[in-house]
């Protein structure tokens, strides 16, 4: 009697192995999920969090930031450095230096949320690679924007 049960056990075990093999064979005919970067690119969602970037005022092209330092004070990693001063004839301060230490940033988004004038947003930059950390240590976020303080 025991021998019969044993044989049934062995047979059932063998059949379960064959079921597993059938699944992996089936996998071979399913199209792979991989997106072959850099030849193909995966679509980024709208809320993707790259490093933060400054938004420009539509009319003037100057950054909207008023250098209130709310973002710097709210950052858990203390990676934002903002300074600002009033340009001649303007009512509010404007930023003349906005540096991000991306080596410390955790992409939490508190700076984007807390900004009272919505001057910050996430960028879509993900292909960031470099040989030194100096490229990300002090990212100058005002580079690509016009500013009343730049020499040109």
């Amino acid at each position, binding site marked *: 009697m025991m021998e019969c049960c044993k044989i049934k056990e*062995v047979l059932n075990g063998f059949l379960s*192995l064959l079921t*597993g*093999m059938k*699944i*992996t*064979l089936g*996998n*071979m005919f*399913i199209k*792979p*999920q*991989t997106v*072959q970067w850099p030849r193909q690119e995966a679509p980024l969602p709208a809320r993707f969090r790259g490093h933060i970037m400054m938004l420009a005022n539509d009319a003037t092209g100057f950054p909207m930031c008023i250098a209130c330092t709310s973002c710097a004070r709210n950052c858990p990693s203390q990676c934002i450095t903002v300074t600002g001063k009033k340009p001649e004839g303007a009512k509010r301060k404007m930023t003349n230096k906005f540096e991000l230490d991306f080596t410390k940033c955790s992409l939490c988004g508190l700076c984007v949320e807390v900004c009272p004038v919505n001057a910050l947003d996430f960028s879509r930059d993900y292909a960031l690679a470099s040989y030194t950390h100096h490229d990300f240590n002090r990212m100058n976020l005002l580079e690509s924007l016009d500013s009343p303080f730049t020499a040109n």
Partner: protein
Amino acid sequence: MNISLVSVICYLLGIAALVGLNAVILVWLERKVAGHMQFRYGPMEVGPHGILQTLADGIKLVSKQLLIPDNADKPLFLLAPIVSLVPIFAAMIPIPFTETIQVWELNIGLLLIIALGLLNTLGILLAGWGSNNKYALLGGSRAVAQILAYKIPLLICIMTIIMMSGSYSLRDIALAQKDGWNILYQPVLFIVYIIAITLETNRSPFDFSEAESELVAGFHTEYSGMGFSLFFLAEYSYMLIAAALASILFLGGWQGPFLPGLAWTLIKTYGIICLMMWFRWTFPRVRIDQMLSFGWKVLLPISLINFLITAGVLAL
């Protein structure tokens, strides 16, 4: 059989080329099969569809520093990969790839191959002991326990085939299957044989001696660069020998309709290798004591009963 020194050297060079080419193909094939079974592509960068990937791996491995651990037994440590690799060249001598392509026709060819297959385990044990590393030692001792349990069912399988064919020579065994392949008469034996060679070559689900998640890399933990690649090469070459043996013992060797003999040998051999790869990527690892009890309590009785039935049928 009178052969000259020149032809022996030619044949040995041919075997060396075959071993190298086989390793190149198998590494690529394994990674591609693994990739597609896992919803991904496998190597795609180096060469079209990653064909040159093995070359890139080889260059990388050769350029690595050869490290020898501090208190390791230096002669044993350096000897172990060589002990694993060298018997392959001798084991390939009696294998007939077609009716005419064979290095040397030995009338005890099968015995030679089985005897030399044991030296792989010796290499693993030497690596395990000589590394001065507890993980490697565990891997090496597991390999010895494994081989002791599985050689006997394997030998009984082969004895059954020898009984059916009447000769130890591989060529004669293949020729004796002219009327029908052995797998038709002995399907259970074929399954036992496939399990036994998966064990002998330390392939998953029986890869305890190099279990990645338990022993960090088992017996080859301390090897880097060329030492590791020699073990790798040895594993794939033993797979080739075992699969070639399976195709000769059970599937009729080079015989088959339409295509030339060499094509059939390659198809059958690589078909069995693909089967072994399929096992690797499907099943979890068996525990060592379960494997031992499986070997002694299931495989041995099955192969013995098969042997007795075959002997009875042949006597009648």
